[in-house]
C-alpha cells in the first residue's frame, strides 16, 4: 500500500526525540544488567554440573530452570517481546512453546521401550 510522504529509500537523517533517547538509555542499562545476569546464570549452571558437590538429581532440574530464566530474559529484554503491540508475537511464541512441550515429552518417553 502506498506510503504517502516518506520515500523508504531515502537515508534518514535527524535524531530521535528526547523521550526516545531517554528510553534508549534506560533500555541500554536494563540490557547490560540482564546480560550480566545471564552470564552469571550460565556460570552457575556450569559450576553446578562441574562440581561434584551438587547431586545430579538436583543439578539437572536446576540447570533447566536457569535455562528457562535465561530464555525469558532473551525474549523479553533483548528481543523486546514485552513492548506494547507485540500481542500476536507473544501469543504465537507461547503457543509454539505449549506445543513443543508435548512434542519433546512424547519423543523422549513414548517410544515403546517403556510402556506408560
Amino acid at each position, binding site marked *: 500500500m502506498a*506510503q504517502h*510522504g*516518506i*520515500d*523508504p*529509500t*531515502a*537515508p*534518514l*537523517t*535527524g*535524531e*530521535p*526525540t528526547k*523521550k*526516545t*533517547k531517554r*528510553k*534508549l538509555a534506560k533500555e*541500554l542499562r536494563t*540490557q*547490560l544488567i540482564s*546480560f550480566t545476569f*545471564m*552470564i552469571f546464570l*550460565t556460570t552457575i*549452571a*556450569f559450576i*553446578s*554440573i*562441574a562440581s561434584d558437590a551438587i547431586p*545430579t538429581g538436583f*543439578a*539437572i532440574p536446576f*540447570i*533447566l530452570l*536457569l*535455562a528457562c530464566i535465561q*530464555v525469558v530474559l*532473551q*525474549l523479553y529484554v*533483548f*528481543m523486546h517481546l514485552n513492548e506494547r*503491540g*507485540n500481542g*500476536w*508475537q507473544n501469543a*504465537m*511464541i507461547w*503457543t*509454539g*512453546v505449549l*506445543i*513443543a512441550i508435548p*512434542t*519433546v515429552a*512424547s*519423543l*523422549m518417553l513414548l*517410544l515403546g521401550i517403556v510402556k506408560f
Partner: protein
Amino acid sequence: MADQHVQTLPPNLEKATLEGKNKYLGFWLFLGGETILFASLFGTYLGLRGSLNGGPGPSDLFHLPLVFIMTMILLTSSLTSVFAIISMKKGNYKGLLTWMTVTVLLGAAFLGFEIYEFVEYVEHDLGFTTSAFGSAFYTLVGTHGAHVAFGIAWITTLIIRYRKSGLTLTNAPKFYVAVLYWHFIDVVWVFIFSVVYLMGIGG
C-alpha cells in the same frame, strides 16, 4: 526526495512502514515455527541419547571448558547485536554497521569452535553414523550450527549491501529482523548447552 520534515527519527524504525510491520510480525511467526522445529530435534535427541551402539557417549566426549567458551562467545554476540539496534535507533548508522560486524565476527568464532569440536569428536570415534546418539547429536547441534552459518551469511550480505546507503526505512527492518534471528539462535543454544552438554555430563 529526502523529506526535510524527517528531523526526528520515528521511535520504532523497524515498524514505521507497512512492509516493515509485516516483516517484523512475519519473522516472529517464523520463529514460532522454529520453536517446533527445534523441539522436534531436541525430542529426537533426548529419545536417542542413550543409544550408543558401543560408540562413545556424552561423558566420554564433552569438555565443559570448550562449551563454556562457546557459550560466552554467543552470549556476547547477542549483546553486541543489542548495541547495534540501539545505535540504529539513535540514528548512528556507523555504529549499527560496526556492532553488526562485531556480531558476525563473534558468530564466526563460535562456528570455528564448533567445527573444531566436531572434528575432535570424529577423531574420538563418534561418527555421524556410529550410533543413534551420534546421528541425533550431530543433527541437533549441526542444525543450530547451520542456523549460525546462515545468520552470518545473511548479516554479512546486509552489511555489504547497505554499507553506503545510510539508514533507511527499507533497511532498518532488515537489520532489526536479522538481530531477532540472532537472538533466537542464542535462545536455542541456551537449551543446547543445558540439555545436551550439561545434562550429558551431569546425568
